[in-house]
């Protein structure tokens, strides 16, 4: 398989050309808050050492608020009008492995039976150019969830820095290969250059997801949850910044003669999330809601889709107003698991 080389300048030229052809071009923002649509190639950020943006990349596939359809009132009747889908060809430059790898994971729940064409259309229209990661802080744990700074999952093309202004460019999918072929004037073939993987340190694994899963399988009723949940204030920032949290609400927004039905991000951390009309709530306290979040990510999704619903990006911890550290919680679960093994032996 052919690999390629591209310089920083060529990447900017490529972005410029695509902007000229009305592509939507997305890159991490200057202020580090999110992946942003850029208008000018000078705003393109290609930086391996960049801290993960505050909000993940998922909003470009699964927006915070998405119109499902419009309705128009006509005397005693209604007309339902399809929301104009996003047809724009899109390219995302410099996606972190912990963001890009979330897309195929999300694709499973959006396609396991009924197909969510809103999500699929965006995935279909987007070329994800991943970038190897040289950032690591105490909140990161990608290597513990089976990923790494060089994980190519979800990327169509993967970039690995060769120097400050030169990147090794690897096509990953057919879509990526087609994109490279269509833009070959900006890209040179990597004739005698091999993949520079040795420049990357691999952060140490902090826990075993197999151990965590095995503990979760048996400890639904553990007091552990209620201690962990005591601290949580249920603000759900963890879900809003997360690349894989996919829960949503469906609500109507109405005006006099027309309105729309909208799919909005929601979170299992909110009390209303599961509250029945009768007032009964299966998860009436925060501890049960926290248990749901951790179990969904490390057990339920694994049971149903054979994937972990976590990429180890550490955003939920970085942003938590009460300093709940999911990495530490998983380390705790891991050691509880090991303790039970020791006790049983």
């Amino acid at each position, binding site marked *: 398989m052919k690999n390629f080389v591209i310089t920083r300048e060529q990447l900017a030229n490529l972005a410029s050309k695509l902007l000229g052809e009305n592509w939507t071009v997305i890159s991490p923002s200057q202020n580090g808050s999110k992946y942003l649509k850029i208008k000018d190639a000078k705003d393109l950020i290609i930086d391996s050492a960049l801290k993960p943006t505050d909000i993940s990349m998922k909003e470009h596939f699964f927006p915070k608020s998405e119109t499902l359809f419009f309705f128009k009132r006509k005397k005693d009747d209604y007309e339902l009008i399809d929301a104009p889908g996003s047809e724009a060809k899109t390219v995302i430059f410099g996606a972190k492995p912990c963001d890009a790898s979330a897309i195929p994971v999300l694709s499973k729940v959006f396609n396991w039976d009924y197909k969510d064409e809103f999500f699929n259309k965006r995935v279909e229209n987007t070329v994800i150019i991943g970038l190897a990661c040289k950032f690591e802080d105490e909140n990161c744990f990608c290597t513990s969830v089976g990923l790494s700074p060089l994980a190519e999952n979800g990327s169509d093309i993967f970039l690995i820095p060769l120097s400050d202004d030169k990147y090794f460019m690897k096509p990953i999918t057919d879509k990526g290969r087609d994109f490279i072929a269509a833009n070959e004037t900006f890209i040179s073939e990597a004739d005698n250059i091999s993949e520079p993987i040795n420049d990357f340190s691999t952060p140490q694994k902090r826990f075993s997801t197999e151990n965590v899963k095995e503990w979760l399988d048996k400890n639904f009723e553990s007091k552990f949850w209620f201690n962990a949940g005591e601290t949580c204030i249920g603000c759900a920032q963890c879900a809003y910044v997360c690349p894989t949290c996919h829960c949503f609400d*469906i609500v109507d927004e109405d005006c006099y003669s027309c309105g729309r*039905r909208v799919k909005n991000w929601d979170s299992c951390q909110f009390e209303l999330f599961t509250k029945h009309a009768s007032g009964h709530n299966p998860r009436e306290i925060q501890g049960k809601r926290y248990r749901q979040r951790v179990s969904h990510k490390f057990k339920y999704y694994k049971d149903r889709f054979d994937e972990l619903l976590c990429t180890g990006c550490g955003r939920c911890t970085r942003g938590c107003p009460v300093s709940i550290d999911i990495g530490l919680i998983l380390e705790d679960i891991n050691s509880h698991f090991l303790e039970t093994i020791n006790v049983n032996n």
Partner: protein
Amino acid sequence: MNIYKPELVEIKDIIVETPDIKTFRLQFKDPQLQNNFTFKAGQFAEYSVFGEGECTFCIASSPTRLEFLECSFKMYGKVTNALNRLKVGDTMGLRGPYGNYFPVEEMKGKNVVFIAGGIGLAPVRCAIWNVFDMRSEFKDVTIIYGARTVADLVYKHEIEEWKSMKDVKTIITVDPGGETSDWKGEIGFVPTIVEKVAPQSDNSVAIICGPPIMIKYTLPVMLKLGFKEENILTTLENRMKCGLGKCGRCNIGSVYVCKDGPVFSYLQLKELPEDF
């Protein structure tokens, strides 16, 4: 295809069941959809009032009677109150059918016991008419239905019809204190009445729907009567939004009520974590 977009249905009739429960009789506005619509007893749908939102109920009519689709709802929240304001001739939205169903085919050749409390009769009623419309295929049929008061009994006219049927044993009860001076039915909570009636458990399947407290106290009675755990069926009514296995709120452990349910046997319920 937009999986979130409902079809338009027209309200053909409204039956006021109790002071806070109504039944809507619906028909698709598109005759072709009406002709092609099928479902199985126990499945649910998402009903829309445009501008207010969607809510989830089982289909209360029988799949053997496809001229109309019926749903019964109790006024509780924003959408059910909006539904309550609709009139005959109004248009609303419907998505479905979703979820699994009662194993009516496998129930053939067996005794069938229907037990319901309050508006819990809605999903049971769907199965009741399904069984009645193929009556010769089943053995003894028993219906035990209770509500808090006489006024809270739903499908009152149909109850009279069931009572007049020769091949059905129909027992209606109201909670103590809920009776009127001319009440001729039983007085007592559903579990007590089930124990008193003691339907035969051999070669029998029971369908039980009602408030969680009723189900909780009826299950031990059923086991005492000798019903097998796999032959006691109920529906779970978790809060849902999408009905499609995506929005993430109806799960109990790894089980999605909207996809793996809403019908579960007691044997299956026992295996689930206590999260419902």
